[in-house]
């Protein structure tokens, strides 16, 4: 069994040590920006939906946001299992970084869904099973991040959050199946009946958002590792027991 101190973390990973981003990370950033530009261009130029009209174009940010949130929480759960098996700190930081990005994309999925809901349903919010379960997912993973902040010991933090990361993933399944399990205003999956041009636009957006997820998660992970390195350096320079233990007076003993 290894501990945090036994597992090395490199806060400079993906960087050249001068504060500048290294070539692979810059390449990923470039691909992400190109993907987003392409996704926006395709989303704005594909034909409008026959029933919903132009408002349906919001699906090209709403669906990818929800997909990336599911992916992020899946990665959190798998990384949590990996930490419980190996106790390697890299799995803990991956789980935390992915959960952080997942919460962000759950927020954008909720926001874009509400903006779509107003012109389509006539309301920003309704107590629909899909909407409520997604809001609950958002709150559960906010709780996951709060649990991490509230636990100062790295091993306790990793253990508690790993257990929560695995249990919380069950809510992802509830959100996904909510439109089948309950009678909902939110539509069921339409991936098999969607027009090919609209499907292509959706896939381009999903791909672009997935690349952005990888970039954001790797940055968040690097930040967590750098902050931990900074914290450990601060601990090394300070006394363990502070003023509670006074320096032994060895000179007095030699005099006697």
């Amino acid at each position, binding site marked *: 069994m290894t501990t945090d101190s036994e597992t090395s973390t490199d*806060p400079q990973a993906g960087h050249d040590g001068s504060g500048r981003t290294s070539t692979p990370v810059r390449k990923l950033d470039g691909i992400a920006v190109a993907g987003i530009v392409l996704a926006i261009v395709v989303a704005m130029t594909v034909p409008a939906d026959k029933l919903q009209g132009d408002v349906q174009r*919001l699906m090209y940010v709403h669906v990818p946001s929800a997909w990336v949130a599911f992916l992020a929480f899946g990665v959190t759960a798998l990384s949590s299992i990996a930490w419980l098996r190996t106790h390697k700190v890299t799995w803990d930081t991956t789980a935390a970084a992915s959960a952080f990005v997942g919460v962000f994309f759950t927020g954008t999925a909720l926001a*874009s869904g509400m*903006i779509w809901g107003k012109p389509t349903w006539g309301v920003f919010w309704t107590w629909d099973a899909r909407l409520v379960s997604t809001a609950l997912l958002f709150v559960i993973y906010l709780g996951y991040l709060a649990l991490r902040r509230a636990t100062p010991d790295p091993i306790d933090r990793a253990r508690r959050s790993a257990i929560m990361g695995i249990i919380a993933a069950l809510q992802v399944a509830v959100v996904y199946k909510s439109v089948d399990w309950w009678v909902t205003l939110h539509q069921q999956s339409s991936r098999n009946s969607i027009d090919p041009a609209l499907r292509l636009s959706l896939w381009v957006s999903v791909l672009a958002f997935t690349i952005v997820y990888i970039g*954001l998660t790797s940055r968040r992970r690097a*930040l967590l590792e750098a902050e931990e390195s900074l914290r450990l350096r601060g601990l090394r320079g300070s006394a363990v027991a502070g003023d509670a233990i006074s320096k032994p007076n060895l000179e007095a003993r030699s005099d006697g």
Partner: protein
Amino acid sequence: MADPVLAVLQAAQIDNPWSWVIAGYTIVYGAMFGLTAWLWMRLNRVRRQLDDEI
């Protein structure tokens, strides 16, 4: 007006579907680029602190 949100929307004359599309895209992509910039700035600051302490 019973619905204050509707009153604001009507006052702003937001009845064009493109207004909703632009609002949604601005919020989602704006938040995405905002988060990227925040992470980038914070990471650079922490790295500078680490470099200063060496």
